[in-house]
């Protein structure tokens, strides 16, 4: 019976049987069993009916299926998808073939796009890493840096927060949730045999809680800890301790003292910047504060909902209140009276000056992108124009408008993909170069903080998405408009026309594109020319000292000296060894090197000032010795230099700068006069002025008036030595050997040449300038190529007309002028638009400029002329071709 039923079920299609056959058989057999209990006849009737039913249903199922198994259904769907893909594949294959037939066009377009997209991707990756990536702290948007300034006090422009004010902020500012005090510096660190000068931070325990920091290992400092505990940075833990977790709890020499490691931070915690090797706990108690130290920085977490302006308003009355409560000497009172808190979002504080050049660069490459798209759009329009007939034929044969657009967009997309891949490659190769060329990365030492996050710049998913987005945008920008235009209305009309195309709307579009290109190029030209002029001016600033052939380094003596005379004796003995190195002309030292660290400040008084009861003015001071002035080429205006014998005996002599002489002894001969620093070093010692030297620019080449400066002999600390030698850039190994011999415990650090420091001082400007020059050159070339392309095309289209003119006797000169004038007119419009745009845009680079106004007429005029000249040159080649049209050939083609 089973067999009979199974045969009947063969009527069903196979797919149905495979799925339900077993079930149906099961039901049939069960029913049959039931039917048999009712008698043999009943069973027979049942079998016949069931077999007939199965057969009939099976046939019906074959005619009108109720069941299509999922696999077959997917197969059908795949077929549909496949059909769509087929269509696209056809279009892309067609596009690829037609592009392959025009290798010149393809290469130019892909290269143009690759350059533009690559530049944008590269700069974007840097902008993202530095400016857009969130700071690695929880709720980083509420973190601020608090500093201060005291205008009109001759203190440096940017001040920190004195301890007493920090406590006032802690206690009486509701807008602050938490705040920590920290100071940075560098000091000698010794672990086993490794001795190095490392960058470090001293920070209150609240510094860590404010930033929401969590240690990777161990714990963070608490209020119960004293200065004998340190927290290691991740990099120091890795490189100095081989990532050994057992380091927690051990003691080493950090910053010259034995301190215990209590914790290790994770790799993401790098504050104030990535140079920090370790953090020393800084326990300060309100009761033990000495007022007037303007060094430390404050990092704070604002209460939710607080605005910067609101916080600043709450902080502003506090310095005065603190001063009123504490009293203090007159200069302190004057500073606190004028002290203004400055609140900056933490990111802004960390990124600082680099933000502007980066945005400028992104703007510049954005302009390049526009120019490139305009250029490619132009090429595309020309190509579409020449394919009008081909497209019209397709349309006439029944192709829909969508299909025509798709064919052309396929080309655009292929080119954009090529450009995008090329751009990603360019960015991939270019970002490391960019990082190396970036300002502040040059110094590498302790001189200036590296740009935060810059090292992380590279191609990641976001950047690649940006790249893909840019490519797609480019494809739409240059492909879609010509595609819609050339497939739209009026297309069929071109079938009826002869080969001569329509000149009119299309011509206008192309001219407009060229205007955009030229205008953009003018903007970049003006910007880079302004920066070049600034750079040139800045390079020619006389800082008051030489920068060529001077090697400099710092080293701290490895012992304490009982008095100044002993310190001097040590320094001169050390310098004798340096001077003995072959090729060394002279050696000197200074406690604070110009262009590197600036100089500290001290209040000084003279007998005359004391008698008049006037307040002591602040001046910059540095300890100097040896042949410092001779080595640096700082001119001696009157008197004499320090002498070794005097210094080794500890005689209190002093050399002052020209502006200090004018400030302290107006109208008098300063030589032989007395001067006393208030509160620094010597206490009540009166010094005798023995010489006056030329002013120097200490920390900023842009400073207009030099600061008064006093040079004291034999100031303790770790001075910078300056070594004059024709081999300045190769002196480091020999100097290192001397140090190893004389003071083996002391690391040599901040090793530079003065030339490099001078270059560093201009790094931000020179970097931006270099990038803008590259951008402007690219823009100029692209603009010229664009104009050339459009004019060439137009000359080609007008060949019959020009042929008629020549046949009628027009001279080549006239034809040439006609074409050049056409190009010139377009260029002129572009230049005018560009100049107007530049007038509005140059203010963005104003802070980088030096000695030149952002609206400098000469620069604007000069660059306009350059652009017009290049445009005329680009027009001349097609003009030449036009004037050589053979009328016979031209007319025969008609």
């Amino acid at each position, binding site marked *: 019976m089973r067999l009979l039923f199974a045969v009947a079920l063969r009527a069903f299609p196979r797919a149905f049987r495979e799925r339900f056959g077993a079930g149906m058989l*099961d039901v049939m057999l069960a*029913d049959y069993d039931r039917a048999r209990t009712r008698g043999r006849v009943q069973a027979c009737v049942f079998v016949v009916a069931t077999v007939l039913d*199965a*057969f009939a249903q099976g046939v019906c199922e074959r005619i009108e299926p*109720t*069941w299509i198994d999922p696999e077959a259904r997917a197969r059908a769907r795949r077929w549909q998808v496949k059909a769509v893909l087929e269509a696209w594949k056809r279009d892309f294959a067609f596009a690829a073939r037609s592009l392959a037939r025009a290798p010149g066009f393809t290469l130019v377009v892909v290269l143009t796009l690759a350059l533009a997209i690559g530049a944008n991707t590269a700069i974007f990756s840097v902008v993202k890493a530095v400016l857009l990536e969130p700071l690695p702290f929880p709720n980083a948007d509420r973190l601020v840096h608090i500093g201060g300034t005291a205008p009109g006090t001759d203190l440096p422009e940017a001040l920190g927060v004195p301890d007493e004010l920090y406590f006032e902020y802690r206690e009486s500012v509701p807008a602050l949730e938490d705040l920590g005090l920290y100071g940075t510096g560098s000091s000698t660190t010794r672990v086993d045999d490794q001795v190095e000068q490392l960058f470090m931070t001293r920070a209150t325990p609240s510094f860590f809680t404010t930033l929401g920091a969590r240690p990777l290992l161990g714990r963070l400092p608490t209020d119960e800890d004293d200065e004998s505990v340190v927290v290691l940075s991740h990099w120091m833990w890795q490189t100095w301790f081989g990532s050994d977790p057992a380091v927690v709890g051990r003691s080493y020499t950090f910053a010259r003292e034995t301190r215990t490691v209590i914790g290790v931070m994770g790799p993401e915690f790098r504050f104030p910047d990535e140079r920090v090797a370790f953090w020393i706990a800084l326990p300060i108690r309100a009761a033990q504060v000495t007022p007037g130290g303007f060094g430390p920085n404050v990092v704070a977490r604002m209460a939710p909902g607080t605005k910067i302006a609101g916080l600043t308003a709450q902080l502003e009355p506090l310095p005065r209140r603190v001063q009123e409560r504490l009293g203090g000497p007159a200069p302190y009172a004057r500073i606190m009276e004028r002290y203004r808190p400055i609140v900056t979002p933490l990111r802004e504080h960390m990124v600082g000056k680099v933000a502007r050049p980066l945005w400028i660069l992104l703007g510049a490459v954005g302009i390049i992108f526009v120019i490139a798209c305009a250029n490619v759009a132009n090429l595309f329009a020309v190509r579409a124009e020449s394919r009008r007939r081909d497209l019209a034929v397709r349309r006439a044969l029944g192709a829909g408008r969508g299909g025509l657009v798709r064919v052309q967009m396929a080309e655009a997309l292929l080119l954009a993909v090529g450009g995008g891949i090329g751009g990603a490659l360019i960015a991939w190769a270019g970002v490391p170069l960019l990082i190396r060329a970036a300002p502040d990365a040059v110094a590498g030492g302790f001189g200036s903080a590296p740009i935060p996050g810059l090292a992380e710049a590279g191609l990641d998913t976001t950047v690649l998405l940006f790249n893909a987005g840019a490519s797609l945008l480019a494809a739409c920008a240059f492909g879609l408009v010509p595609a819609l235009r050339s497939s739209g209305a009026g297309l069929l009309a071109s079938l009826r026309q002869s080969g001569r195309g329509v000149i009119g709307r299309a011509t206008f579009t192309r001219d407009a594109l060229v205007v955009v290109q030229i205008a953009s190029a003018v903007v970049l030209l003006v910007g880079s020319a302004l920066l070049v002029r600034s750079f040139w001016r800045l390079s020619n600033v006389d800082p008051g000292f030489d920068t060529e052939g001077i090697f400099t380094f710092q080293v701290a003596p490895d012992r304490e000296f009982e008095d100044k005379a002993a310190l001097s004796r040590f320094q001169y003995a050390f310098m004798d060894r340096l001077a003995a190195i072959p090729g060394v002309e002279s050696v000197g030292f200074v406690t604070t090197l110009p262009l590197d660290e600036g100089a500290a400040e001290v209040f000084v008084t003279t007998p005359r000032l004391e008698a008049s009861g006037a307040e002591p003015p602040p001046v910059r001071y540095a300890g100097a010795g040896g042949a410092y002035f001779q080595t640096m080429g700082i001119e001696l205006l009157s008197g004499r230099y320090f002498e070794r014998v005097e210094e080794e005996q500890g005689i209190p002599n002093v050399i002052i700068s020209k502006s200090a002489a004018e400030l302290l002894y107006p109208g008098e001969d300063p030589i032989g006069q007395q001067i006393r620093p208030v509160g620094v070093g010597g206490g009540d010692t009166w010094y005798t002025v023995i010489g006056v030297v030329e002013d120097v620019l200490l920390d900023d080449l842009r400073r207009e008036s030099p600061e008064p400066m006093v040079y004291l002999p034999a100031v303790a600390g770790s001075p910078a030595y300056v070594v004059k030698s024709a081999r300045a850039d190769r002196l480091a190994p020999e100097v290192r050997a001397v140090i190893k011999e004389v003071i083996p415990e002391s690391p040599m650090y901040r090793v530079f040449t003065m030339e490099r420091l001078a270059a560093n001082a201009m790094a931000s400007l020179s970097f931006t300038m270099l990038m803008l020059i590259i951008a402007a050159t690219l823009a100029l070339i692209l603009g010229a190529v664009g104009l050339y392309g459009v004019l060439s095309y137009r000359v080609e289209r007008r060949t019959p007309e020009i042929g008629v003119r020549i046949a009628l006797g027009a001279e080549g000169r006239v034809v040439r002028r006609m074409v050049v004038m056409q190009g010139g007119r377009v260029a002129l419009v572009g230049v005018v638009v560009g100049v107007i745009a530049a007038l509005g845009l140059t203010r963005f680079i104003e802070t980088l400029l030096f000695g030149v106004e952002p609206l400098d007429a000469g620069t604007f005029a000069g660059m306009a002329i350059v652009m017009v000249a290049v445009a005329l040159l680009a027009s001349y080649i097609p003009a030449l071709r036009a004037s050589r049209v053979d009328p016979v050939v031209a007319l025969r083609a008609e």
Partner: protein
Amino acid sequence: MSNSQAPAPLSSLEYHVLLALANGPLYGYALKEAIVEESGGALTPRAGSLYRVLARLMGWGFVEETAPTSPPEPHPGLERKYYALTRRGRDALREEAARLREAAVLAERRLGLAADEAR
């Protein structure tokens, strides 16, 4: 696809398949038994008809194959497949029931009215 579009109203066999499965997953023969019982013997589908309806309902997404809720009773032969109502099937059954109720109400009212007129 043509058979993914369910017609309204359902045929009475389709309705009874959904109705039977609304009580819980059933295998083929149990489903048939339930239909016979619930239709008061009006419907006695044979295997071929039953399974074609089942296949159609599966195509519409009203019914799906499922694992039995309780351990299946021991049974010689091939493993039985169980069928269950999907969410869409439940909705369809509800709609159909409402339609049938309306039709029934209409019928009763008319019969009631006819009785009144006769009076």
